[in-house]
């Protein structure tokens, strides 16, 4: 039960921040905090495969984009012209489609967001399974290169496919009613509820991953990170453990993509870009690799700052610089205690020589 204590503090903090923004009338911060939450969902998933299982992935923006683009495509493209064709009418009868009116009063027939969400996440899971099988046999730089290649492919597909809006991306993505009364949407009035939907999702995501890393399989993951040969000699099916973790993290990324796309009402190819993947990897590194809380805190802070425009147009450069500095001075991450000890060690020396 002790490992759940931080979750309670986390929940309290989420509520506290919301109350503070209400009192100080700075509720506009909630928008970026909500978006940060979804990015953090991806980042904690990436932290599990990278930090705990030791497998680097430079393709997680790809999985995010698969989730976001598929659910955007399915819920925005009008199927009305095909309403009478076999498959469409079958889907309609099965209750998988919803019809609505657009601005001009024409009927729109689109896939139900829940169905779109399931299709999107399943697709990401299947792609992760197919990709992970061969790719996770690679180690270190080679694995990074292969996943980078995957990320580039997804980016180019998003840029080149008319269905996905090419360079413009997709907009007009409808809201997503999770449960009656709980709707993911960017409506001005739905800001507070969306803040809680997003952070509630992160909370559940965090809970499941904390369970995982403290379980028998979590131990097997840390073991294969330490020595794959020895882990195998202890009966750990390392290929399977790596693959399942990779798939799990891809599902987290896809879910983040789905929810953020419905929240924003749009998605563009920028979300699939390689720089996004690099950013996620950098955040996990800054958080201390095998450190879920570090990844969550750093992820939220940096994404929030980035979306508030604190880094201006040097956004990507800032993340690059941070990555270099962390690798040079704090390869164990910012939140590890011994770094502060390190700094304390340096201090008295300076006084001595001065």
């Amino acid at each position, binding site marked *: 039960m002790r490992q759940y204590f931080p979750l309670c503090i986390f929940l309290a903090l989420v509520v506290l921040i919301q109350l503070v923004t209400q009192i100080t009338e700075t509720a506009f911060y909630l928008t970026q905090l909500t978006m940060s939450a979804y990015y953090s969902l991806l980042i904690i998933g990436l932290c599990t495969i990278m930090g705990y299982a030791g497998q680097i992935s430079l393709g997680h923006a790809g999985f995010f984009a698969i989730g976001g683009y598929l659910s955007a495509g399915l819920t925005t493209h009008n199927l009305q012209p095909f309403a009478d064709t076999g498959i469409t009418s079958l889907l309609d009868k099965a209750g998988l489609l919803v019809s609505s009116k657009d601005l001009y009063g024409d009927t729109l027939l689109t896939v139900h967001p829940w169905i779109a969400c399931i299709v999107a996440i399943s697709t990401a899971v299947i792609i992760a399974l197919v990709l992970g099988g061969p790719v996770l046999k690679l180690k270190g730089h080679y694995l990074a290169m292969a996943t980078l290649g995957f990320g580039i492919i997804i980016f180019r597909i998003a840029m080149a496919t008319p269905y996905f809006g090419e360079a413009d991306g997709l907009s007009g993505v409808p809201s997503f009613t999770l449960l009656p009364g709980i709707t993911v949407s960017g409506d001005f009035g739905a800001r507070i509820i969306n803040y809680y939907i997003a952070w509630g999702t992160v909370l559940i995501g965090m809970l499941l991953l904390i369970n*995982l890393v403290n379980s*028998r399989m979590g131990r097997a993951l840390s073991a294969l990170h330490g020595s794959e040969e020895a882990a195998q000699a202890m009966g*750990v*099916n390392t290929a399977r453990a790596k693959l399942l973790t990779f798939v799990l993290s891809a599902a987290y990324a896809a879910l983040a993509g789905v929810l953020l796309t419905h929240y924003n009402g749009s998605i563009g190819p920028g979300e699939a870009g390689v720089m996004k993947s690099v950013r996620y990897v950098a955040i996990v590194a800054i958080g201390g690799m095998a450190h879920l809380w570090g990844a969550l805190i750093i992820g939220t802070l940096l994404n929030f700052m980035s979306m508030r425009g604190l880094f201006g147009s040097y956004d990507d450069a800032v993340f690059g610089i941070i990555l270099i500095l962390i690798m040079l001075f704090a390869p164990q991450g910012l939140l590890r205690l011994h770094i502060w000890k390190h700094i304390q060690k340096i201090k008295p020396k300076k006084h001595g020589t001065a």
Partner: protein
Amino acid sequence: MALLEVHNINKRFGGLHAVNDVSFSVSENTIKAVIGPNGAGKTTLFNLISRNIEANDGKVFFQNKPIHSLQPYEIAQRGISRTFQNIKLFHGMSALENVMVGCHPKSRAGFLAGILRLPSSLSEEKMIRERAYEFLDLLGIADLAHLEATSLAFGQQRAVEFARALASEPSLLLLDEPAAGLNIYETAKVAKLITKIQQRGITILLVEHDMSLVMDISDEIVVLSFGKKIAEDHPAAIQQNKEVIQIYLGEDDA
């Protein structure tokens, strides 16, 4: 019936015939040692049995079932555990956690059970923890349980590796140079420990350089030289074997 049987196993690294048509068997509840000069192919032979490297040809049977085409983790699940010559502990994990990983083949909780924290996985986790403590205790290092394994002294790391290998409750334990880097007292301790393990009903196959250890504890010895088996006998007979003396002490010119 022999517990482990190796039939005509071969391994070539490019032009080097590292293990050349070696056959031998290990009877249940005995201690068998593989000795030979440096580069004789002892560790390669070990890695062929545990499937860490692929044999060119040859067969290996364990409990009368072929195991020469299994994955290393399947070998472990069948009941063969091992230690490594250059200790391979899991860094970033405590001694206890290292040994807990050793319990992997004898426990079942999967991915989903872990993520959802199912009650069955919780009771199993408790069992794993207790068992890991037992094995640390058996090796007299229970007080080191919560220290990071790779930060321990060399001899202690070796003990953790032993405990980890035993935690899988194997029928056959492969020990790759268990006394390497240990002083004379520690080696005597290892000898005692190996006999103690045998008394628990575990069969042992070991590779070792330390002759006194090998002669003291083994029931049978296989001698390798340049990848070939040149002798297989009881310790007393090996000590008298002319060919063995020759490869260890060199040609008698006189």
